[in-house]
């Protein structure tokens, strides 16, 4: 048993302090979630209301291959986004965590700076950059790289650019925390033992920063799979992600039961994916983990 430095009067405090948060979560998270679950078994009234007759038909409707295709496409977008965020974010987080301590808050602030503007406004800004006579095309034409403007906006690439841009900070922050915790002496020791660059990365740095990598990937993957503004505005609504489907069912068709069923299927898929990912990540943990 580790020694308890605090008097018992204090150690009992945390339990009490959790009550407001628990109440908040149960009232504003669990109750609405239960409602959505209940609605997913109801059916749509003629004028878009909810008819409370139990039916599994919303879920049966989702067995149509079309919805599997939407889910698959969303997962593909989210996976590509997560991978790109990792490739871009890891070196960035590493450099920030290894820069002089007094610079770090400023560098992190710069990473967070885009959050100070509404996401919708920033997405519109991307439209100005990517469109036909946009800054990027004008720049490329002025340099003579291309003769005619490139089709950048309203393409799948534009969607990925928008998603990576939007969620990169969610990757950088947990990675920064993980890299900052990484003891530089361990990396030095690896060099001293004649490890190659690749071995240092794969056997020392990556295993030791794994909690940050797992956290960052989850934080990027989940919001990207459910995004709907980016595919609409930057993708020209030519295709649907699962977020668009949910938004469409709730707000356009006013078919809340079907929208709720889609939401629950998405939640189930994401949760399964996260649990599997978490398990596979913790199984391969190096011996140094949890020292």
């Amino acid at each position: 048993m580790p020694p308890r430095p605090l008097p018992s009067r204090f150690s009992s405090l945390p339990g009490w302090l959790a009550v407001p948060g628990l109440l908040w979560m149960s009232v504003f998270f669990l109750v609405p979630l239960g409602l959505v679950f209940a609605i997913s078994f109801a059916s749509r009234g003629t004028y878009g209301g909810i008819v409370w007759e139990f039916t599994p038909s919303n879920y049966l409707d989702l067995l149509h291959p079309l919805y599997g295709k939407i889910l698959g496409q969303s997962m593909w977008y989210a996976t590509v986004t997560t991978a790109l965020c990792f490739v871009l974010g890891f070196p960035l987080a590493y450099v920030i965590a290894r820069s002089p301590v007094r610079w770090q808050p400023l560098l992190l602030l710069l990473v967070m700076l885009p959050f100070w503007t509404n996401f919708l406004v920033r997405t519109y800004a991307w439209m100005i950059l990517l469109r036909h006579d946009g800054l990027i095309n004008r720049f490329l034409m002025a340099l003579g790289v291309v003769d005619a403007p490139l089709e950048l906006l309203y393409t799948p690439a534009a969607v990925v650019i928008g998603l990576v841009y939007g969620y990169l900070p969610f990757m950088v922050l947990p990675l920064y925390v993980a890299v900052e915790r990484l003891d530089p002496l361990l990396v030095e020791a690896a060099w001293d033992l004649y490890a190659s660059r690749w071995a240092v990365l794969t056997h020392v740095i990556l295993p030791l920063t794994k909690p940050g990598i797992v956290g960052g990937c989850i934080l990027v993957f989940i919001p990207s799979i459910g995004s709907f503004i980016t595919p609409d505005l930057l993708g020209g609504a030519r295709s649907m992600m699962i977020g668009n489907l949910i938004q469409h069912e709730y707000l356009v068709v006013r078919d809340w039961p079907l929208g709720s069923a889609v939401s629950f299927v998405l939640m189930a898929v994401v949760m399964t994916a996260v649990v599997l990912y978490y398990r596979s990540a913790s199984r391969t943990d190096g011996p140094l983990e949890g020292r």
Partner: protein
Amino acid sequence: MFSRLPRMGAFLLFLLGVAGSFSACGEASDGNLPESRPVLHYFTWSDYVGPEIIRDFEQREHVKVVVDTFSSNEELLAKLQSGATGYDVAVPSDFMVAIMIQQGLLSELDHQEMPNASLLEPHLQTLHFDPERRYSVPYLWGTVGIGYDSAVILTPPDSWSILWDPRYKGRISMLNDQREVFGAVLRSLGKSMNNTDPMVIEAAKERLLRQKPLVKIYTSDHYDQLLASGEVVLAHGWGGPMARAMAERPSIRYVVPKEGATLWADCLVVLQTAPQKQLAMRFINFLMEPEIAARTSERLRFASASRQARERVNALTRENPAIYPPLDQLDRLEWMRDVGRAIRLYDRAWTELKMQ
């Protein structure tokens, strides 16, 4: 080193919190601080109101008007259904008026209070969703059609089939609205846009699948800018935004295809929960005053339902078919109606179109 982490975490959380607070949306604000003047809450489309017209009413009646906006009929309905109260006057479109009457969201009107509301264009006198105008007064109306750049498309098109012309691949925008897009195709197939036959909807979907490679974007809000900047040369959409595009790029023209298209009307209604019902009706009467209606029409670039407004608007407005539909078009126009359960057919077909 470790002891700094919690502080850093708190700092990051604070930044995230700042970010979150920016994305919160505005709610219907009360706006009536310590003022004694009565307040009227007007719930309308964004960009659908002239501030100087509102000011006129405020001065005339010694009241304050608080304007709040929505961006789709569905958003309006969702807000009211979820219990938003305090609004007096709203502006739903035709098919939404029908739903709101059904849902008991509207208050009966007293036409004695608003004589101007009866001076309507003949074809807007008796509307299928509210034949006696017990709940609604048509306010602005128009058509859905095709806006095109006459500098690129030299022979003026007269049919929906121009939207299937491979020469304009990648330069076409369609409304991001399943009923309107299917409506256009159904009319081009010689069917009603309110058709509920699964075979017909399937046939319409097949036609739309063939069109999709040509479509640059499905959008309901900024096709006027795309037309004006030349990024698209053909746009499916409402007349008003086409008129805006014309103002920026004079070679833009507007056509209502010969196969027929949507006729729509946005209507003024008083909500069941309105705190200021009398004032609300005076406001409707004011908006339908011929002079005010004409100014509204010129400013918003939509036709007014007021019969006398047509005589008062300037010639540029009256003679622009994107703003004032020529009356000889009326017999090929059709109101969009609720299709009941068939909405799932449209919905499935629309989703399939998007996923192709």
